[in-house]
């Protein structure tokens, strides 16, 4: 299908919650789980703090992919902050598509503090997918 652009180095911005996914990324590091160097992580305290506008802004600024990730449903450090984002995301992803943005540029996952291995796999896969999609056209315009 899509051609994989090997020389393209996707820029991924992660917006992750402090208690689960950020901690999971720490665990991946402590366990020396290797992944391609494409993910930068912006830390917020809770999944509930994530706003669709943050994702849009990152895409507008040229991020090739945005990873939004928080605790599993039921695991939230703040009881149910993540649920609010959990409800918003499907709608948001639909909206993105209508705006002409490939919704595959946004990956929405739940990664716990002990799931460094899962996060590593998610990033590997995301990088592969983004290489198929190619660079963010908004970034090319710069």
């Amino acid at each position: 299908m899509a051609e994989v652009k090997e020389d393209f180095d996707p820029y991924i911005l992660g917006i992750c919650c402090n208690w689960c996914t950020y901690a999971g990324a720490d665990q991946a590091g402590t366990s020396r789980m290797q992944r391609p160097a494409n993910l930068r992580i912006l830390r917020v305290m809770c999944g509930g703090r994530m706003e669709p506008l943050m994702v849009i802004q990152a895409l507008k600024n040229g991020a090739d992919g945005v990873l939004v990730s928080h605790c599993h449903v039921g695991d939230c450090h703040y009881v149910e902050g993540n649920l609010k984002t959990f409800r918003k995301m499907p709608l948001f992803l639909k909206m993105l598509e209508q705006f002409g943005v490939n919704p595959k540029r946004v990956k929405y996952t739940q990664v716990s503090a002990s799931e460094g291995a899962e996060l590593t796999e998610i990033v590997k896969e995301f990088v592969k997918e983004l290489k198929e999609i190619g660079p963010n056209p908004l970034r090319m315009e710069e």
Partner: protein
Amino acid sequence: MSKTINNDEEVKIGIYICDCGINIAGVIDTTTLTEYAKTLPNVSLAKEYTFMCSSIGQEMIKEDINEGLINRVVVAACSPRMHEPTFRTVVREAGLNEFLFEQANIREHASWVNLDDSEGALKIAKDHVRMAVAKLNELKPLEVELVKVEPTCLIIGAGIAGMYASLDLAQEGYDVYLVEKEPTIGGHMAQLDKTFPTMDCSACILTPKMVDVEREEKIHLMTYSEVDNVDGYVGNFDVTIKKKPHYIDQEACTGCGACAIECPVICGNEFELGIGTRKAAYIPFPQAIPGKYTIDMTKCIKCGICASPDVCEPDAIRLDQKPEYIDVKVGTIIAATGWDLYDPTELKQYGYGKYPNVITGFEMERLLSSYGPLEGKPVRPSDLKPPHVLGFLQCVGSRDFRPGKNKYCSRVCCMYATKQARQYKEKHPEASVYIFYTDIRAFGKGYEEFYESAGENFNIKFIRGRIGELYENKDHSLIVRAEDTFLQKQIEIKLDMLVLSCGLEPRHDSDQIASLLTIQKSSDGFFMEAHPKLRPVDTLTSGIFIAGVAQGPKDIPDTVAQAKGAASSAATLMAMGEFAIEPYYSIVLEQKCSGCKSCQSLCPFNAISFDVIKNIAVINKALCKGCGTCAAACPSDAIVQNHFSDDQIFAMINTAIPPLAKTENGGK
């Protein structure tokens, strides 16, 4: 171009790049990173040092602040989850507001995950430093909130872990609410016969402690109770405890047992794992504490015999008793809920539940117990004769790497199988006893000696190899085939009985407890500690601690050690009397709030109320835990979360992505 803080002071940022020995500098070219850092907006200086967290590193920062060279600090090092508190203290001690600090994670999120990609790691490190600077430019000084810590602890689970933690805390002078869901305290240890490696009788060392717990004035024992709800925060948890109805007034009951004698309903006895029987009116075991009776309503036929004055002289029977809810306020919580035994029924190849002579190690424990259903004389279930050839199979439900199975080692089965094998040989020296194992793990004090002696002095045969096939003969004896991996040959043995050494699992309801306490579970399903080495009894939720098998499989010595550790951590917090909480609460900007109330229903902590006169939302900062959900949702941008404001987050997003042209040439 330069920003200002409080009055007209210019923003002067100091960036400190940590080598972390070779952990960072071995991968990332920290000299290039330091030079790059100097080019960022409002950066006055950038320095590199081997270990920023060392006292020399800390002094470097302090000196620069004291000399007026900088007034904000970025440290690019490990995860902020590791050293943010360290560097905030440094900044505070140098006289700056500690929230004018930002840590860039260039170790866990850069060097350690890109060990073979120096360029890639450098690229991530630069982006993280740039984002930190962007945020730092927007940061505002904040005041730490001190909250009082109630000198009272809630302990959930009264197994050996919960009991020891309670005793320690009570003796230190703290009030303890010890909540146990069963009608008695003691936990699983009460069901064990002897304990490895010293072979002391479990009941003999446990029951005196149970009595101590009951007698201790500071311990408010609540058996047959469960935690129904937990609200609040560190130092100030509001807990609702549900006392289940005993259907017997516990104050009036004298424990005479007449109700149980007269009760006509006979049912399976959980304490004996169903091997023995009890009545619907019962006491779990004779030494149970409290020694009062309970009626099992799921079994009771409401005949009313026990309620007659001839039977219950003190008139304690209350067949219409209702659950009672009790509210308590505590400063700290310890979860010590223990374990469930792995159920081997799903491993069809071993025939548990199908072949009568295949039993679990826990059942064997009851068969061997001198106060168990067989008074310590194990027999094979099919014909009630003592087995001549007895086998144990190790790692049942542990160390299994198939999807959905328990990968971890349960850490007690090698030793308990050896213990049980030895106990059987002591009673039946003529019997042959085999232990089929994967590896023998005899790691504790005196364990290796115990294992050695089992082979040498008791002639127990250890065979390294899992059982591959198992058949049942007509007489219910079992044929097992295994590979002896030392001799590299197939063996076939006829056993009279096989004991499956089942592993320990997280409690089936541990999910509920975790979400009640908002604590995390590790991938094995046990409660997760805040740090695997340095904070083994803390959780990520301040004020909540874990102990015993609830945290991970362990034997009694380790359980007791951890319980004492958890008690000490809780006591430290309560002795300090105050706890500093991060001021990440949200604030409503009055002029912007339109009074739509959409934030109110989103708050998980009911921290948002509505001021009907001003027609605006009001956030109670003591109740707000700082998730920022309201700030994300406010349609008028009227809510600001401290330290994670839109200005701060969007500043990061806006600098996070370097323009393409720059990254391709010279941007690095």
